């Protein structure tokens, strides 16, 4: 229908800009050749725009398409996946840029650009990314407006202004939609963006946590309902590592689903039998950054409160799917609960006493010797901790260890980080015949002074031990606390100098904690990121709660009413702006006064005839009302001066005369007209 819609020159420029803005940030996540495609396309298009180059010949287009397909096949194993999909879309809309003939071609580019701009949110969800995507959407909308508007030389920014205004008008309605839109679980499983994540892995070799100790990357944030526990109670359990092969520690079994005893919403017999609840429970919400596995962090014996999370026998909180994006969950924990207080099954006992066939002979000998001297497990533990306390040194840069790492640490170097102490402790206990296991996770966290939530960073990573004692079950023992109690009380930064922690990242924000205003700023930014993560990124987990608080009760009628009322309120400004169809033309002040003068004469029975000049009208009225003749002429003179003399003048003079005339004329006219 209609003529062939051309894309205006202004529209083309906005389109190019939109493509650049949309594609630019994705290059961090895509193979390095992908950026060349939009770059080439935009430059070529600019060449066409400036009439320097022609449209690429069909052969060139075919070559480009083949190159792109080849590149995609070479860079990715398969074309199913997030990165290949986004790379393909970027290639597609870049190449389409080269053959825009009509408005419809431009639309294809624009719709792809909308889509690609939003897929950036799958790679990064930070607040800044959110801002960037908003900007990109405004730019793409400007391109959309640009291809529908006439080029106007004196208003080159018009498409951008239109787009910004419309997106701003759409924002309130977006909030309503966002709040109410029902969230479903994933419809089918999708490949996640693959890139390295700093953080804990599911195995521990000595030295792994030391390297984490230098990273200030965010691990998770937690906010507590009610009182925050003491710092020394904040042992965030991650994985329980029971298998030791002489070099690395691993969980006994990989595949937590086997070991899960209770999913959210279930009540298992195992839990009833093996966990004895004591003390006050803690309820808290954790916003976990994406990480390498599916385990979560909790404080001791826990009940999962979020859908598709569960708890295993060794008190590892797990999620059904790997945590490939920021994940928010709620837990209820009893840090003082007793775990397996009555007995340890023989199979379990064997697992927790497992030792590699050989290695670390001195440690084993010493353990057996001490056990025979000190048969009471508590006394044995106290003796070992005393031994640590005597001559050991807590450091982030421990000396290298040999093949028998625990022997080297215990008897030679005696310098180590938490993992050294924990691993040697567990090995010693096992050698002494006491069931023990290694636990990795985080310890402590930074309390945000205003918002009251804890921020746990990678440098809070920690390892500690657990031993099984009759009647008390699994007991937490942290040998690091014996050596460096300030680590537990004040965090890593309290135990070490900042220079030592951040030797490799001189510009980390966390490094400058001593500069007061900088620290305030850092805390402000973190609070923003936290609220962003909690209320926007994690909205699906709090949606029902938020709606319940807003509406009192969540049912379809209330949601419908909220949607309707919200939409009306959100659209009210737009309604007022756009539906003010009869924008009134404001009359010239001189006309305004003169017309009111004419109205009073009309009321007196002397209306101005169509086409009658002011002069003629005045003459006629003066004849009819001789008493007011002078005033009538004076007003007409003033009006003609204002309108026709071309020198402007002060409408106030006219206003005063008209007002005076009307006041006098009103009581004089009845006499005259009689």
């Amino acid at each position, binding site marked *: 229908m209609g003529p062939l819609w051309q894309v205006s020159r202004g529209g083309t420029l906005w389109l190019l800009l939109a493509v650049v803005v949309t594609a630019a940030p994705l290059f961090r996540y895509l193979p390095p050749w992908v950026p060349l495609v939009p770059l080439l396309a935009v430059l070529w298009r600019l060449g066409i725009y400036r009439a320097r180059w022609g449209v690429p010949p069909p052969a060139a287009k075919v070559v480009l398409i083949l190159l792109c397909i080849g590149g995609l096949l070479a860079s990715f194993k398969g074309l199913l996946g997030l990165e290949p999909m986004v790379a393909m879309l970027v290639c597609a809309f870049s190449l389409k840029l080269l053959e825009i003939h009509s408005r419809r071609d431009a639309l294809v580019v624009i719709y792809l650009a909308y889509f690609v701009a939003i897929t950036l949110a799958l790679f990064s969800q930070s607040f800044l990314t959110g801002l960037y995507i908003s900007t990109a959407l405004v730019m793409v909308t400007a391109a959309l407006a640009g291809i529908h508007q006439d080029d106007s030389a004196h208003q080159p920014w018009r498409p951008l202004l239109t787009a910004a205004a*419309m997106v701003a008008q*759409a924002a309130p309605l977006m909030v309503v939609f*966002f709040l109410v839109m029902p969230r479903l679980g994933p419809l089918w499983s999708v490949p996640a963006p693959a890139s390295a994540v700093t953080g804990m892995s599911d195995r521990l070799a000595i030295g792994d946590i030391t390297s984490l100790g230098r990273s200030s990357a965010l691990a998770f944030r937690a906010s507590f309902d009610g009182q925050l526990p003491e710092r020394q109670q904040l042992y965030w359990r991650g994985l329980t590592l029971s298998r030791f092969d002489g070099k690395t520690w691993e969980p006994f079994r990989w595949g937590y689903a086997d070991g899960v005893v209770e999913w959210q919403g279930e009540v298992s017999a195992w839990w009833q039998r093996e966990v004895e609840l004591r003390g006050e429970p803690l309820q808290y919400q954790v916003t976990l950054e994406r990480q390498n596995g599916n385990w979560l962090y909790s404080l001791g014996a826990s009940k999962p409160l979020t859908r598709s999370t569960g708890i295993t026998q060794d008190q590892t909180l797990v999620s059904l799917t790997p945590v490939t*994006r920021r994940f928010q969950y709620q837990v209820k924990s009893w840090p003082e609960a007793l775990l397996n207080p009555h007995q340890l099954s023989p199979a379990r006992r064997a697992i927790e006493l497992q030792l590699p066939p050989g290695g670390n002979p001195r440690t084993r000998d010493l353990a057996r010797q001490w056990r025979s001297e000190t048969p009471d497990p508590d006394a044995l533990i106290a003796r070992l901790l005393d031994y640590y306390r005597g001559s050991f040194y807590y450091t982030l840069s421990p000396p290298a260890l040999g093949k028998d790492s625990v022997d080297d640490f215990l008897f030679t170097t005696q310098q180590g980080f938490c993992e050294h102490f924990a691993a040697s402790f567990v090995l010693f206990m096992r050698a002494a015949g006491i069931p023990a296991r290694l636990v990795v996770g985080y310890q402590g966290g930074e309390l945000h002074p205003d918002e009251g939530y804890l921020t746990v960073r990678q440098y809070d990573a920690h390892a500690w031990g657990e031993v099984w004692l009759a009647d008390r079950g699994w007991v937490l023992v942290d040998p690091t606390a014996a050596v460096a109690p300030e680590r537990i009380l004040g965090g890593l930064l309290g135990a070490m100098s900042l220079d030592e922690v951040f030797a490799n990242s001189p510009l980390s924000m966390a490094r400058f904690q001593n500069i007061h205003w900088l620290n305030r700023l850092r805390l402000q930014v973190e609070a923003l990121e936290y609220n962003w993560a909690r209320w*926007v990124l994690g909205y699906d987990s709090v949606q029902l709660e938020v709606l319940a608080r807003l509406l009192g009760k969540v049912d379809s009628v209330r949601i419908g009413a909220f949607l309707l009322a919200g939409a009306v309120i959100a659209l009210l400004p737009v309604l007022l702006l756009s539906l003010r169809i009869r924008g009134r033309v404001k009359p010239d002040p001189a006309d305004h006064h003169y017309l009111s003068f004419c109205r009073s004469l009309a009321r007196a029975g002397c209306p101005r005839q169509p086409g009658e000049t002011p002069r003629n009208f005045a003459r006629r009225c003066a004849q009819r009302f001789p008493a007011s003749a002078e005033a009538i002429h004076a007003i007409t003179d003033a009006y003609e001066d204002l309108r026709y003399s071309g020198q402007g003048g002060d409408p106030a003079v006219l206003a005063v005369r008209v007002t005076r005339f009307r006041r006098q004329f009103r009581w004089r006219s009845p006499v005259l007209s009689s």
Partner: protein
Amino acid sequence: MTAARNGFFQRRFDAWLARRLPRVERIRLDRRSVFTFPSRQGLGLVLVLVLLWLLATNYQNNLVFAFGALLGSLMVVTIFHSFANLAGLEVRILGVGAGFPGDSLKVEVEVSQRGRRHREDIWLSFPGAVPQRVALPRGEQTAIVTLFIPARRRGLRPLDRLTLETCYPLGLIRVWTHVLLRGAGVVYPRPIAGASTAGGNTGDAVEGSATTWGSEDFEGLALFRPGESRTRIAWKQLARGLGVYSKQFSDPVADPTWLDWHSYPGLDREARLCRLCHGVLEAAAGDSPFGLRLPGSESTLGRGEIHRDSLLRMLALFECEGA
């Protein structure tokens, strides 16, 4: 569009439209008369929204949800902007031209507004006509759009429904109306050459002088009247001191041509009108005055384009519906 679908629903729709928007002199577009629906491009964006929803759901990504919601809201907001671009306009027909079958009739449409709103990218079209675009930049209140509609059969051609549509500002929402405005084009008969039995020059001889004042042949001198061209002053007579005279010329007048309905026996009405039309055109090309006699009406004698057109109009409207 109207011709393509001629089924049951189309007829129902036309009948409904006829009730809702009857033929009027001028119309001010408002909620009653304007229709709003996503355009084809808008449906494309809906597809993008569905894909985004799938993406957000499968990746459980609330940020994608949020931006999807933003695009959806943008589309809703566009409804109001597009509607406001069309609503409030006043439309009337200034005039419709005349022509022969197969010609295009010129239609002048006035589009105006009372306010000062900026309006852009509004398309006007008649069925079968090339659409025309009109804009009312901020502050402008009137624009005149010229459209050309095909002329088909002889007679009065009342205007079809005029479609006004706009997708401004984002092209996502189409707002349109089909208004029926008073105004009709005149379609002359198709000129067909054909000999008349009685010849063209029969009829009453013209009484009185067979000349009219003109410029061809010298006729004589008359007293100069102020206002006459100086080139006509008879300088020789003036030089002789005879006074100011002007030279008078006259044009020879051929016998008047009467085009008569009864000159074409045996033909039906339309065929006669076609011959008469041809005759009018022939006569208009010649020098002699001409006139037209139809059953029940007779024109004056005259010459020139205006006279010709009035005769053609007589032929066009002769015994036609609606005339």
